[in-house]
């Protein structure tokens, strides 16, 4: 299916007038649609970018965070702006469709007004429309595409592989993909993707000799102009995820190698050099300040929906840094004006994918329906009804994580529960039924085992300090991405700007201080050590048991640490 612009606007008008939403504010949304997707082509080289969709083939809700702190030099800087601070910085009108797409503000009401976001069938329609007006445009996928749903887990990512091929992805890089193991990744690269999708990663080498595992970059002509796309996989994959899944691969940041690769691509005639990155935005910003000759870094990992690129100056000129959010919510569109062999100008827009404004592409919808058929019974099992809003994203906790911690405490009989600070996981509105599919959206990983460990109080402190440093180290290269580990039972205070070992204080359990020498029973899941392989029941079984038992999830009280030193920080609104 290919539409010209006029047909596309007609479809939008039909969608807007067709009563597809339940709310009376829909007329307003319909009007917004026309301006939302009005982005005429400029320049002669266009690149489209998706990232971190976390295998969400269907439209979903995803609440952006109200806590995304920037510490030290990152305080008050993009992407560490939330809510109205973000709207102000990017001049987005409060209450608009875009305000809903980019912030948590008035989330429940806005979600009911504007409907669900993302979904590959709706994304496919938008990609086709944008490509129709931009001949030669390439579609880049920043990774975290194969993980995050029940069907992706059960098909070992085959559903996402097929969907990406049909969507027309040209180049991709990796993070969670690696959790299917080296063999599976290589199988997909060499069989399914052969001649269709290139996997690029300049920073993945063998652990023995340091030989490349993937192509470091590809050069593709767009309208006769050679464009290099360099890959940067998530540098801390074997640390944040189990090393035993990629025992022969080494990752890391490797600025010197990045510089050598960029220089080599320029030497081979590339007039535009971009990096497809899974670094996370703070790391991308630092890298952009150090490596010369990159026109743009298309970033992901930290799930920041950043409406406009950050311009970073460096000794070679300047580099644009973007981040295209998560869960299929957005399509990034970059138009470069290339003149006399180099980039002379650009226009960028991060387009939100509103499912109600973009009709489903029939071919993609058919593919999605087909891959789901064998699993529909399992996916649609009703576990409980939620009375409050359930979401995950935020530096310290999310309501869905709190439910997971509550389930761990109860089912495992623990004093304290830990749940990893993942940034994926969709949102549910008050009154929604929690199905097994929704639960898997929060938990579907290849190392889902639950653990119950006896731990001394001092070890609890060590763990919290370690994770907190991975989040708030003043040097982004020492950060690991992800958010703070979520805790159940335990209370603490946190001073993000303090040094390592000093951030976590006042640890309490049931009104009593944690004793460094006392042993506590701690439940958790997603262990990265090889010894913990196959430990306890998968987390979704534990949470499902809990949810079936309670039937109704009452509005959740978030267990948040008492925060110090964050007053006036525009990365937090509580």
């Amino acid at each position, binding site marked *: 299916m290919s539409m010209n612009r006029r047909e596309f606007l007609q479809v939008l008008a039909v969608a807007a007038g067709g009563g597809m939403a339940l709310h009376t504010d829909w007329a307003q949304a319909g009007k917004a649609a026309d301006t939302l997707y009005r982005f005429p082509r400029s320049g002669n080289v266009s690149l489209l970018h998706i990232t971190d969709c976390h295998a969400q083939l269907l439209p979903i809700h995803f609440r952006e965070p109200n806590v995304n702190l920037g510490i030290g030099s990152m305080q008050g800087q993009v992407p560490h702006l939330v809510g109205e601070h973000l709207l102000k910085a990017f001049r987005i009108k409060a209450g608009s469709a875009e305000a809903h797409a980019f912030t948590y503000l008035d989330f429940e009401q806005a979600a009911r007004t504007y409907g669900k976001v993302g979904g590959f069938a709706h994304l496919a329609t938008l990609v086709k429309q944008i490509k129709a007006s931009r001949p030669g445009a390439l579609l880049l996928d920043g990774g*975290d595409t194969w993980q995050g749903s029940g069907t992706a887990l059960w098909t070992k990512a085959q559903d996402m592989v097929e969907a990406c091929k049909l969507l027309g992805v040209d180049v991709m890089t990796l*993070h*969670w993909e690696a959790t299917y193991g080296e063999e599976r990744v290589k199988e997909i690269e060499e069989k399914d993707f052969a001649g269709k999708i290139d996997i690029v990663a300049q920073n993945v080498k*063998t652990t*023995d*000799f340091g*030989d*490349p*595992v*993937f*192509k470091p970059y590809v050069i593709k002509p767009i309208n006769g102009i050679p464009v290099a796309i360099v890959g940067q996989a*998530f540098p*801390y994959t*074997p*640390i*944040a*995820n189990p*090393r035993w899944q990629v025992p*022969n691969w*080494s*990752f*890391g*940041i490797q600025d*010197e190698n990045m510089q050598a690769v960029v220089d080599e691509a320029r030497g081979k005639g590339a007039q535009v050099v971009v990096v497809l990155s899974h670094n996370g935005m703070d790391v991308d910003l630092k890298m952009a300040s150090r490596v010369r000759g990159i026109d743009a870094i298309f970033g992901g*990992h930290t799930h920041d929906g950043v409406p406009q690129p950050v311009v970073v100056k460096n000794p070679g000129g300047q580099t644009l840094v973007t981040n295209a959010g998560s869960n299929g919510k957005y399509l990034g569109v970059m138009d470069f004006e290339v003149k006399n062999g180099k980039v002379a100008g650009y226009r960028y827009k991060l387009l939100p994918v509103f499912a109600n404004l973009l009709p489903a592409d029939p071919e993609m919808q058919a593919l999605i329906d087909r891959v789901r058929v064998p699993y529909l019974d399992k996916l649609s099992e009703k576990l409980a009804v939620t009375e409050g809003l359930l979401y995950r994203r935020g530096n310290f906790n999310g309501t869905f994580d709190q439910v997971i911690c509550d389930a761990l405490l109860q089912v495992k009989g623990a004093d304290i529960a830990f749940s*990893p*600070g*993942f*940034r*994926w996981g969709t949102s549910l509105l008050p009154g929604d039924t929690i199905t097994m599919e929704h639960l898997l959206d929060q938990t579907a990983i290849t190392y889902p085992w639950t653990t119950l460990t006896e731990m001394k109080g001092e070890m609890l402190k*060590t*763990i919290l300090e*370690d*994770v907190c*440093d*991975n989040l708030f*180290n003043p*040097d982004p*290269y*020492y950060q*690991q*991405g*992800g958010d703070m*580990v979520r805790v159940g039972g335990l209370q603490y205070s946190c001073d993000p700007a303090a040094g*390592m070992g000093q951030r976590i204080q006042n640890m309490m359990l049931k009104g009593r201080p944690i004793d460094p020498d006392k042993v506590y029973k701690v439940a958790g899941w*997603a*262990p*990265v*050590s090889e010894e913990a392989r196959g430990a306890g029941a998968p987390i979704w079984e534990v949470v499902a048991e809990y949810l079936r038992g309670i039937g109704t999830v009452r509005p959740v009280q978030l267990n948040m640490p008492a925060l110090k030193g964050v007053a006036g920080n525009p990365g937090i609104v509580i």
Partner: protein
Amino acid sequence: MIKQRREVLKTGGGLGVLGLLAAAGVIKPELALAAWNEGAFKAGTLEKSLAALGAGKPATSGDISINAPDIAENGAVVPIGVSTTLPKVESISILIEKNPDALAATFKLPEGTEANVQTRCKMGQTSNVYALVKADGKFLMAMKEVKVTLGGCGG
């Protein structure tokens, strides 16, 4: 197709290739026989190790680069490389401040050798890693922090 040396070794039958490398002079057994400074390797703290090497308190040099990860993927085998553009390099040592014995490796470089070495070190915790270079009779140093973390919770 990306060629990897691990595949060559597998298909070539490990030992045979290593034998060839030895025969070609790439691996020289006599290099392993350089004098072993046991005192320095068991000196304990960074200060004592530097003293045992006769380095005292070396000045920092911008001509020494440490090639090591910002965060170690595996604390048991952290790849640490040191290279320098300094002339007349006699030795390169790697010291890890927080290890029980700071000195992890010393390389004696015969005259005319490219000053670029790499090894793997064990690190139990986050630490500053020092590269100590003796060049033209003088000791100089560079430092980089390598973080060792518990892992997990990412993404």
